[in-house]
C-alpha cells in the first residue's frame, strides 16, 4: 500500500523532508518500523500519528488513500 507521509517540526529536520511517498506499507506499525530503519534518530522522537487527518493510537491496516502525518509536540511560546 502506498503512503503519502507529511512530517512536521523537528521530524522534518531529522529526515530532511517535509513530505515523502512510501510503497508496500501494509499497516502503520510497518510504516514506523521502516522509518526507524531509514532514520534511526526517529526512534526516540515523540509524535502523534494522524491517518487521513484523524489521530490514531493503535496499529492500523492501510487501504485506499493513506495520508499519514507525524506531528511532534512543540513547547515554544
Amino acid at each position, binding site marked *: 500500500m502506498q503512503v503519502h507521509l507529511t512530517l512536521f517540526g523537528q521530524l522534518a529536520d531529522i529526515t530532511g523532508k517535509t513530505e515523502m511517498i512510501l510503497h508496500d506499507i501494509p499497516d502503520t506499525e510497518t510504516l514506523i518500523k521502516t522509518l526507524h530503519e531509514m532514520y534511526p534518530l526517529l526512534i526516540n522522537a515523540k509524535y502523534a500519528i494522524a491517518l487521513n*487527518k484523524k489521530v490514531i493510537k493503535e496499529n492500523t491496516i492501510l487501504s485506499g488513500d493513506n495520508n499519514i502525518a507525524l506531528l511532534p509536540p512543540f*513547547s515554544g511560546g
Partner: protein
Amino acid sequence: MSNPTKNDRYQRQISLKELGEIGQQKLKNAKVLVIGAGGLGCPALLYLAGAGVGRIGIVDFDIVSLSNLHRQVLFSVNDIGLSKALRAGDVLEQINPEIEIIVFNEKLSNSNALEIIKGFDIILDGTDNFASRYMINDACVILKKILVYGAISRFEGQLAVFNHPSETNTAVNYRDLFPVAPADGEVLNCEEAGVIGVLPGIIGTMMANETIKLITNIGNALINRLLTYNSLNNHFFEMELVAIPETSKMIPEGAKAFKAFNYDWFCSTSSAFELRPEEVQRMMQEKNIQFVDVREAGEAPQVNDFEHINIPLSRLQEQIPEIHAETIVLFCQSGKRSAGAAEILSKHFGKSRKIYSLKDGIAGWQKSK
C-alpha cells in the same frame, strides 16, 4: 463602570450580527487566564483586553529582556528588567480601563496552579516548556476548565482547544495527543531554535480568536482538533483528536495528588539530571535521600563530607536492592561513571525514584569547597 453594550469602545464588534450586544455582555462576564506573558501571551492579551473580556488574569514570573522585544509586543525598551506580568497589566489598563486585570507576578507551580486557575473559565497556555504545559493541562482536567493551547517551534505553530465539554464527544486533553513528555533536549525552545516574532504573533492572536468564539458561542472553535500552521509555506493542517481511556490514568487524581506530582521530573530524563555541587549541598538536608559512591572499592580520595554507601558501577545491577531511598545521588571521580549508573537505575526504577548524578564528580566537589 459604563454599560458595555452602550459603549463606543465596542461599537465595531457589536455591529457584527453574530456577536451583537448579547455577545458583548458575554465577553464582559468572561474570566480568562493567560499563562505566560511572552510571544503568545502578549498578542492574546492585547486582543482579549481590547475585546472587553471582563476579567483577565496574567501569570508570569519573568522579567523583560532586550531579546524579548522582537515578539513580546506589550513591552518596550523602558521595561527591560521589569516584571512582565506587572508591565503587561499596566499596558492593558491603558488600553482598556473598563476591565478587571489580575496580575500574578509569580511562577506557576503545582502548589499554586489550582488556586490561580480556579478563579477563571478559560485558560490560555502560552508557556515555553513542557513541564508547565503538562501541569496546566492536568490542572484544567482536574478543575474542568477549557484550555486554549498554543505552541510554536521555529516556523510552525500548533493550536487547539482542549478539555471542552461537549454532548457528542468526550473532552480531549493534551495528554490524549502527547501522553509522554519528550526528553530534555529532544525539542528545542525558542532560545535554542530561534523564532521570528510574527509566528507567535499569529498563533497568539488565533488563541485570542478561539477564546472570543468560545465565550460568544460563534463559529466553530478548534474543539478536539489540532491545527498546525507553517509560516514558510502558509500550509494549514488540521486533524481530529480522540480521547484515550488510558491517558486519564496518567493525570493526578485530585488536588493532593496534583501537588505531589513532580512535573519537572516527569519532563526530564534522569541522565540529564546532573546536579552541581552547590545543589547537592542543599539537598543534604532532605529526608529519604541516599548517596551512592559508584567507584571501585579503595579508590581515592575518600569522601567524608556526607554519609554514603559504596556500590561499584560494575556490581550496580545486582546490588540495586540495597538502594531504597526515594532520592538517589550517585557520584564517582569525574561524573562519568555516575551518569552511567544513573541511566542503569532510571531504567530499573523508571520515574518512581528521583535519580541524580553529581556533575564533575568528587573532583568538582572538592574544587567547589
